[in-house]
């Protein structure tokens, strides 16, 4: 059966199980949109208000569901507007397929209207990209795109399709991609390495686990829990590993890195064996590499060979699928409790509670509402069951430090790229992917205004997300750095903000603003009880700081409590 390239695009998406795409139409992608109109009962298209919103929504969808998110845009500015979200997905290993329209093949390279070299532009920030110039290439390339995006260490793929390829007809057939000669997504697990790792763990006096998003991507949460419980090894998490292990698990010792918990950071430089599971030793986690865990033998469970020894020299590298590796190591692990070692974490946690956490959750001296207590209020009403989507800045650190999670895939944030403007559209995607779950976006007043237009998407789709703006009228994290490291010179960080409630109400979203502590409980309760989308602005203490903190370039055990 001969069909157009544009129809083939839709049929390929359907064959890959896609039922929801985010996008924005324009000249060079119009044939695909014309087919979307025809297939709208099978493939739901969400019209965002800016292409960046489409990528973040697709990311939120992917992170909440584990499926591939899809974003569609036109050529030129449509395509370039995708780049931030693609870069974000690349560094956070989020499976995403972006489809862009392109000018006709005969116009390529002629600086035609709305032509950009999106292949060249997106090359450094995609796992793979490809420009289709003939309709007949569409099935094979889209099949490859989905295979590459979701397999191994996931990532974003961009497919650019010239307009002639969308119009031309060809004999359509579709076959899913199951392998590519030059691409080995999951290295074969070596059992001798597993045995070496087990021996090191069994002989360790002070072993310590750091786990990252690899656990979630590899669907190895149960294996992680079993491994921790049998080995008795305390476990800390990276920002993207958050929610892979329930917050209240007794061996969960908290967050690592720049604004992580005191105990796990301090004790990174005390452990004798450091077991890294599905994490990549990001500089925000390691601090100064020259002093990071130098006393420890490092075991690195990792799917991506390029990450081995990239930042931290490993004693044993266990390459492969983390779920398979944990299943293999579990029988080799001796049951231990490591009580005295675990007590060291508890002692340090007590210090952190006394010097930081108590004050954050129960501010004294007439201080305004804190971000931490707002998170605690959300915990109270969500009971740890919500998906928390956070933007980037101080509120993100407070959200990750204080939000409580019972189940996996519940923490969605921009980790590696630190993209302000991420949360509002990502929350839309998360809620559409998981309509059964409560989705709460935590956003600062700065980041909110970077993608504020997506309130329009919420209004149009009626997606019932909850939006909490923690408004300190500052670009809070930059201000904190200015206070601590730039002699209180607040260069361009004070925000004169509009009436956010009026704006949200302009989009017919139910809204409330809280300025007094005594109103917070009822407002959060009302928000969480709402069946519709809800906008809550909380005016928080202006010059609150996130502590603990490891200053840039400092050693993890030089973490500051104030």
């Amino acid at each position, binding site marked *: 059966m001969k069909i157009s390239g544009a129809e083939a695009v839709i049929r390929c998406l359907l064959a890959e199980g896609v039922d929801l795409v985010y996008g924005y139409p324009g000249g060079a992608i119009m044939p695909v949109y014309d087919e979307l109109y025809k297939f709208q009962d099978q493939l739901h298209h969400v019209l965002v208000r800016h292409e960046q919103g489409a990528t973040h929504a697709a990311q939120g969808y992917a992170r909440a569901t584990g499926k591939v998110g899809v974003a569609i845009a036109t050529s030129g500015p449509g395509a370039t507007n995708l780049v931030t979200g693609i870069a974000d997905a690349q560094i956070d290993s989020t499976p995403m397929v972006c489809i862009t329209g392109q000018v006709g093949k005969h116009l390529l390279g002629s600086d035609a209207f709305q032509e950009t070299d999106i*292949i*060249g532009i997106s*090359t*450094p920030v995609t*796992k*793979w*990209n*490809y*420009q289709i110039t003939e309709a007949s290439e569409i099935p094979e390339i889209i099949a490859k795109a989905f295979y*590459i995006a979701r397999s191994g260490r996931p990532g974003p793929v961009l497919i650019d399709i010239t307009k002639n390829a969308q119009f031309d007809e060809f004999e359509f057939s579709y076959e899913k991609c199951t392998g*590519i*000669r*030059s*691409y080995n997504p999951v290295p074969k697990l070596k059992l001798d390495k597993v045995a070496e790792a087990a021996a090191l763990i069994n002989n360790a006096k002070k072993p310590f686990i750091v786990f990252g998003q690899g656990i979630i991507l590899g669907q190895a949460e149960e294996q992680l829990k079993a491994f921790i419980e049998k080995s008795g090894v305390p476990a800390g998490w990276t920002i993207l590993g958050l929610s892979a292990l329930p917050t209240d698990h007794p061996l969960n010792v908290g967050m690592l890195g720049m604004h992580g918990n005191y105990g796990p950071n301090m004790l990174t430089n005390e452990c004798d064996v450091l077991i890294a599971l599905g994490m990549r030793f990001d500089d925000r986690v390691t601090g100064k590499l020259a002093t990071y865990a130098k006393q420890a033998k490092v075991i690195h469970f990792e799917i*991506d*060979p*390029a*990450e*081995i*020894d*990239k930042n931290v020299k490993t004693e044993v590298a266990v390459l492969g699928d983390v779920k398979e590796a944990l299943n293999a190591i579990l029988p080799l692990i001796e049951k231990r409790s490591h009580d005295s070692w675990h007590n060291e974490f508890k002692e340090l946690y007590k210090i952190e509670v006394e010097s930081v956490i108590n004050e954050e959750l129960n501010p004294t001296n007439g201080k305004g509402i804190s971000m931490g207590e707002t998170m605690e209020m959300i915990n109270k009403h969500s009971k740890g069951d919500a998906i928390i989507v956070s933007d980037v800045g101080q509120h993100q650190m407070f959200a990750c430090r204080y939000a409580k999670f019972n189940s996996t895939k519940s923490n969605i944030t921009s980790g590696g790229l630190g993209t302000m403007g991420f949360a509002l559209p990502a929350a839309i995607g998360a809620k559409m992917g998981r309509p059964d779950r409560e989705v709460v976006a935590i956003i600062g007043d700065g980041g909110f205004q970077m993608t504020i237009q997506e309130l329009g998407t919420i209004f149009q789709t009626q997606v019932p997300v909850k939006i909490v703006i923690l408004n300190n009228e500052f670009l809070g994290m930059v201000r904190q750095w200015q206070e601590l490291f730039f002699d209180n010179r607040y260069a361009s960080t004070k925000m004169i903000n509009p009436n956010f409630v009026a704006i949200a109400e302009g989009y017919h979203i139910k809204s409330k603003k809280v300025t007094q502590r005594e109103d917070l409980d009822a407002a959060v309760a009302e928000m969480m009880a709402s069946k519709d989308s809800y906008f809550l602005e909380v005016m928080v203490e202006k010059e609150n700081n996130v502590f603990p903190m490891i200053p840039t370039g400092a050693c993890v055990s030089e973490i500051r409590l104030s």
Partner: protein
Amino acid sequence: MEDKTFTISVYSENNVGLLNRISGIFLKRHINILSLNVSESEIENVSRFIIVVDTTEKWVQNIVGQIEKQIEVIKAFYHTDEETIYLENALFKIQSSLLFDEKQIQNIIKESQSTIVTVSRDFFVISKSGRRSEIEELYAKFKPYGIMQFVRSGRISVSKEKMEISSLLEALN
């Protein structure tokens, strides 16, 4: 760790755009490519990049890892100069009259074991294959007589040890 010269060999599918991806890996790390050659390899439909850089072993390991991550890259290797047989090729274009007026030029050609590729009324072209130092030495000898044009290729090299690419491909196919 000190800088050394490394020859990186990349076996890849012959696809448009891969050069951009690979060169970007060096760009991101601010590492200057000293020489780059891309050609067909001994395996049908498989291209081979030969990239020469001065860097540390840690960085070259890191870069090779990043190169191998690229979807179309089949395998990448790195070698020190001692581990490879390598050479470059250079062409020198020189005025024809000098061949007759400057007898020394003929001696230079003989001694350097370079080859006359063509001779026309106005110019002749010398080809010289060898190590960079041999080409630079020849350049220095010709220079006083005037070189109309000079061009040098990227390094090509083969490893002394067996490169396990064919058996790898057999396993993949």
